[in-house]
C-alpha cells in the first residue's frame, strides 16, 4: 500500500506540478503546515536544479515508514534523479552561497537543512541522484 508518485521535470511546469504533488502527499501523511512548506520548498529546489542544469529528470515521491524506538514513524522520501552532466565537485555545491546560476546559492545546502536526511550521488557525465527524507515527528 505504498503511496508513490513520479513527476517528470522537462519544463518549468514540471517544477510546479512536483511541488503540488509534494504538498498533497505531505498533507496526506499528516505533516503540519511548517513541515509542508519545508518539504514543498525542498522539492521545488530539487526540481529547479533538474530544470536548470539538465535536459530531463524526474522527482519521485514516496510515503515511507520505519521502525523507530517509539514505534512506527512515517515519513516522505523525495528522490530527484537526472541523466545530466553530473556534479564535478560535490563539496562546492554544498557550500552556502555557491552558485553557478546567479541564484542565491541556497539551493542544495538549503534542501539539506529543510529535510532530515540528505544523500547525494553523482557521476560526472552520467547523472545525479539526490535522496532526501523528512520524518513525521
Amino acid at each position, binding site marked *: 500500500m505504498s503511496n508513490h508518485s513520479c513527476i517528470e521535470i522537462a519544463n518549468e511546469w514540471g*517544477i510546479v506540478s512536483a511541488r503540488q504533488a509534494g504538498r498533497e502527499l505531505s498533507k496526506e501523511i499528516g505533516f503540519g*503546515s511548517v513541515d509542508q512548506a519545508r518539504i*514543498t520548498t525542498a522539492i521545488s529546489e530539487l526540481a*529547479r536544479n533538474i530544470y536548470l542544469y539538465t535536459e530531463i529528470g524526474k522527482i519521485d515521491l514516496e510515503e515511507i515508514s520505519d521502525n523507530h524506538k517509539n514505534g512506527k514513524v512515517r515519513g516522505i522520501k523525495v528522490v530527484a534523479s537526472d541523466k545530466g552532466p553530473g556534479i564535478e565537485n560535490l563539496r562546492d555545491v554544498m557550500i*552556502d552561497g555557491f552558485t553557478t546560476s546567479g541564484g542565491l546559492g541556497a*539551493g542544495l545546502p538549503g534542501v539539506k*537543512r529543510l529535510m532530515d536526511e540528505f544523500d547525494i550521488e553523482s557521476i560526472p557525465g552520467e547523472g545525479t541522484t539526490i535522496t532526501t527524507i523528512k520524518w513525521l515527528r
Partner: protein
Amino acid sequence: MRIPILKLGRYLLISVQVELDDQTALQFQEDLLNKIHQEGSLGVVIDLTSVDMIDSFIAKVIGDVVEMSSLMGAKVVLTGIQPAVAITLIDMGVSLQEVQTALDLEQGLERLQQELGG
C-alpha cells in the same frame, strides 16, 4: 499568467493569489517596474498572504524586485508572509535582510505612509 497590479494614489498594491511559477514571477517583475515608471509611484505593497511556498529562486526574484524598485524611487513593503513560509526561508538561510515587511496590507500601507510622510 499575470499578476494584477492595482493603483491607489501614489501607491501600487499587489496581492499575489496564484501559485508562483518562475515565468509568472519574472513577468511580474517586469510588469511592476513598468508600472512604477509609468505612474511615478512612491510606494509598493506586495501582499503574500496566499503564497504558501517561497523557494530560493522566488526569494531572489522578490529581493531583486525590491532593490530595482528602490532604484526607481519606490519603497516596497512585503506583507502577509505566512509563518510556515518565514520559517522555511530562515531554514534555507534566506533572510531578505534589506526588505521591509508588515503584517498585512493595512499595516503595510500605514508603514509606507509613515515613511513617506503622509
